[in-house]
């Protein structure tokens, strides 16, 4: 029974990791990363590691995606900027 | 107190200092926080030197071993063998000089965060000392990451500038990836042996023969350490980071941190993989030798082509790391002790050169060799220091870099007859590049260099790191490079240093002795060894490379443009693209290359 759960969780983790890489938009990636954190926490629980699962839940599915989202918000806030074709920016000098 | 008890304090004292600085930093005036930082760094240096003197005492070869928390064989072990303790002492002393140098350096510390720069430097010191002293693989990884995290932050310290941020990011991504590779390797070793201490893993590995798992573990662990050591093709981050970090940080990065990567490779090999259950000596020699030769040639070639002075020095660090790697690759006590002395001398010289460039940056707001042409004629003192540094870098006797080079090239010569020629060539080219820049900048010799065609290039306009441009040069900015060069000279002429380093190398390569000392508490007697010493061939080769360096520099300033050479180097220079994706791809390819080079080792 546990074995089957571990296998399922492993596949979930592998899938989530792949999805997190292939989602090139950081906002969507942050959400997938959050899901990856969740599935890792699940896997760790099945592997009898509640301490690690708890950390992973707190860090991997909350703090890291939150930081990514805040970064995106900062980066996108600037009114007017690149849409890929970037200009050399103000250097702040 | 028992010397062994002092080992963890070498890590704990600077951490306490950092915590004090952060807690009180925003209220302290600049002067006080600088003094507090220096005091903690100096106390650590005193502790490290005390350990070194007790451990390096000639006589029965015992050295201090401390199980942190008193957990014999269950906890983490710190080992104060002369080489590790010596590196900790070198790190601490260099940190003290760097803090003195930065005394007047950042004219304007970040607002409301006065203590943060010295605090970060202190944590950096703790990380490097811990890495040098630890006898536990996972603990080494922790300190590896600690060094990394602090170094990324310090590299990007000047957030108003664009270049440091790019360099710090490349540094961070590539180093973290290397760290994760190392951790995978550590996990594989744990799966096999169920142990984490160097000595315990080594003993249990020797119970079975080498197989694919041991090979994979070696490759993965070494990959991370070689990233830190900036060996080709893991080196791309180094010039980008070292060229843009604040000068005091450059002194530490180039002077000791990169060398700690080489130390890590040597330490892990000798304690874990050198027994019958590890990898065979000829295969490891071949792998490290190939990487070392590639590194040193590429570093020297790129160093010669630079006009951005800090980048020039950074590539010279790459070239010298290659030489250190060759010294380790020959897997003899003489190779280790020669390289150790070379590292000692190089640290002082390279830090002094960076210190001189820092003065130029703060006075002229550029570190571009062409733009600075003849402008620094008004700073003869700096010019003299810079020239002496260039000569010492090329291995001029009797500097410690010269003696170390002589000893290392002799040891390497026993493995392959052409290696000494490589040492001479690379020392001459890197020293020559420094001298060429010195001749142009401080003496205005030769023609004003014109615009070069073709090839990617980094020019050297930068913001000064002090508040404004310096008028008068403050005393510490001159005293520090002078003291560093003097120290490098002294280390080369005092015979006691060479004999102590020789003994350290012999104890370092005594795998059985290390394991017995750590696990069984038996004193390891230093095996027979030949300490580095001045020999006629060494002196002559040192003089030869210094003469070659001068000749190259003179030639270069007389005939500044070599169209053919520029075209020749353009593809190599294009590899250094500043693109993080490229660097990561090279890292993976490098791990594969390392696999291919070591794979015969398991048959």
């Amino acid at each position: 029974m546990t074995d089957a759960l571990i296998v399922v969780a492993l596949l979930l983790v592998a899938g989530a990791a792949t999805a997190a890489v292939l989602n090139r938009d950081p906002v969507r990636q942050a959400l997938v990363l959050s899901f990856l954190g969740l599935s890792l926490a699940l896997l760790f629980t099945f592997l009898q590691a509640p301490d690690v699962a708890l950390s992973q839940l707190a860090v991997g599915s909350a703090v890291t995606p939150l930081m990514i989202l805040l970064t995106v918000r900062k980066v996108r806030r600037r009114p007017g900027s690149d849409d890929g074709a970037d200009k050399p920016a103000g250097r702040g000098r | 107190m028992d010397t062994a008890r002092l080992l963890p304090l070498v890590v704990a004292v600077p951490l306490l200092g950092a915590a004090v600085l952060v807690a009180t930093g925003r209220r302290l005036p600049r002067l006080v926080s600088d003094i507090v930082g220096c005091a903690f760094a100096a106390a650590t240096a005193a502790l490290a030197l005390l350990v070194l003197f007790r451990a390096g005492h000639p006589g029965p070869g015992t050295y201090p071993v401390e199980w942190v928390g008193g957990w014999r064989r269950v906890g983490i072990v710190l080992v104060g063998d002369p080489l590790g303790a010596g590196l900790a002492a070198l790190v601490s002393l260099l940190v003290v000089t760097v803090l003195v140098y930065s005394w007047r350096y950042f004219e304007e510390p970040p607002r409301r965060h006065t203590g943060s720069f010295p605090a970060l430097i202190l944590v950096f010191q703790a990380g490097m000392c811990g890495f040098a002293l630890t006898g536990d693989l996972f603990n080494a990884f922790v300190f590896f990451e600690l060094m990394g995290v602090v170094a990324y932050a310090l590299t990007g310290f000047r957030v108003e500038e664009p270049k440091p941020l790019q360099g710090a990011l490349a540094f961070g991504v590539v180093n973290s990836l290397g760290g994760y590779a190392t951790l995978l390797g550590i996990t594989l070793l744990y799966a096999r042996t169920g142990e984490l201490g160097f000595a315990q893993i080594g003993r249990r590995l020797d119970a079975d023969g080498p197989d694919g798992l041991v090979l994979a573990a070696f490759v993965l662990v070494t990959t991370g350490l070689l990233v830190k050591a900036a060996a080709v093709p893991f080196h791309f981050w180094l010039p980008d980071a070292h060229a843009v970090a604040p000068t005091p940080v450059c002194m530490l990065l180039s002077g000791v941190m990169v060398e700690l990567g080489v130390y890590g490779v040597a330490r892990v090999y000798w304690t874990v993989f050198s027994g019958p259950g590890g990898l065979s000596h000829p295969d490891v020699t071949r792998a490290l030798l190939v990487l070392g030769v590639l590194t040193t040639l590429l570093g020297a070639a790129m160093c010669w082509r630079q006009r951005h002075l800090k980048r020039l020095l950074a590539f010279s660090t790459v070239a010298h790391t290659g030489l250190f790697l060759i010294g380790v690759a020959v897997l003899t006590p003489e190779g280790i002790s020669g390289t150790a002395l070379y590292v000692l001398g190089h640290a002082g010289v390279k830090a002094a050169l960076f210190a001189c460039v820092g003065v130029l940056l703060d006075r002229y707001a550029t570190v571009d060799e062409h733009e600075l042409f003849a402008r620094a004629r008004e700073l003869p003192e700096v010019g003299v220091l810079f020239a002496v540094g260039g000569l010492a870098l090329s291995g001029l006797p009797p500097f410690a870099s010269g003696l170390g080079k002589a000893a290392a090239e002799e040891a390497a010569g026993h493995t392959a007859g052409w290696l000494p020629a490589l040492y001479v060539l690379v020392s001459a080219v890197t020293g020559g590049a420094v001298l060429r820049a010195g001749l142009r900048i401080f003496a205005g010799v030769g023609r004003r260099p014109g615009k070069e065609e073709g090839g990617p290039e980094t020019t050297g306009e930068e913001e000064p790191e002090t508040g404004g441009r310096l008028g008068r040069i403050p005393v510490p900015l001159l005293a520090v490079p002078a003291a560093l060069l003097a120290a490098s000279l002294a280390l080369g002429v005092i015979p006691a240093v060479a004999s102590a380093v020789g003994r350290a190398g012999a104890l370092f390569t005594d795998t059985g002795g290390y394991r017995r000392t750590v696990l069984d508490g038996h004193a390891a007697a230093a095996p027979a060894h030949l300490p580095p010493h001045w020999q006629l061939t060494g002196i002559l080769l040192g003089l030869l490379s210094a003469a070659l360096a001068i000749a190259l520099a003179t030639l270069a300033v007389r005939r500044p443009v070599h169209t053919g050479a520029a075209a020749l180097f353009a593809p190599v220079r294009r590899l250094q693209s500043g693109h993080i994706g490229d660097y990561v791809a090279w890292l993976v390819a490098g791990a594969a290359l390392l696999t291919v080079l070591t794979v015969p080792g398991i048959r």
Partner: protein
Amino acid sequence: MSARARLWIFLVGAAGFAVLFAAACIDLPAFGTVPHPYGVRAVRAALSHHTSNVIASVNFDLRAFDTLGEETILFSAVLGTVVLLRQARDEHRKDPEPAVVHPRVRRFALLTLACALLVGLYVIAHGQISPGGGFQGGVVAATALHLLYIAADYRALERVRPLTLYEIGEAAGEAAYVITGLAAVLAGSAFLANVLPFGTLAALSSGGTVPVLNAAVGLEVTSGIVVLLARFLDQAVEIEEPGEDDGGPWDSGDSGGNGDEQRERA
């Protein structure tokens, strides 16, 4: 280097890595079979010190030196982030506008906040006897505080979050850890030795110095993560760059965040 060349170099390297890793996997002991000598010794050692959560014992007793390094990594990363995300010379601050929050959202968020804070503190306090500890609890508590951003607005968050205090708290946590270690040295034992009485197994005060170090880590992590998130929020909400909101050199469109998305569409 072109994207294609980069990909090829990666693929060659990845193939090598895959072969290497596969070779290692073949030689790995089968999943879930072999006990490790170190693990066995650790369990015995933890029980000898009356610490029921062996992981807490490994973290704060057997390998407390690792945890010192780990906390220092956090400490220096927070310090580094504070330095990197400082207000640059050419930037200015803008007061965030007070937000209008639906009362139901507010009530819910405040309730969650209270619960999460309690859970965080509970997890910290029970580190040595049940899963969890200073790190996990600290992260939960710190993240919980930021629910205020949803519940009220940024200014309310700033009021309950005197950053200076948290920065000092972080340094105090780090210092407490080091000082606990040094106290053992002064008591004539090894650095970070467990010199306090061990108490009874599974009691809140069991484990000697384990709860002390655990509390130090809890303090440091809570404060550290609060400072970390605060810095990112600060950048996202308050700090303005030159050229922002006043035309500047930027004129149109969204930002680089999803540059490649837009490129793909184009």
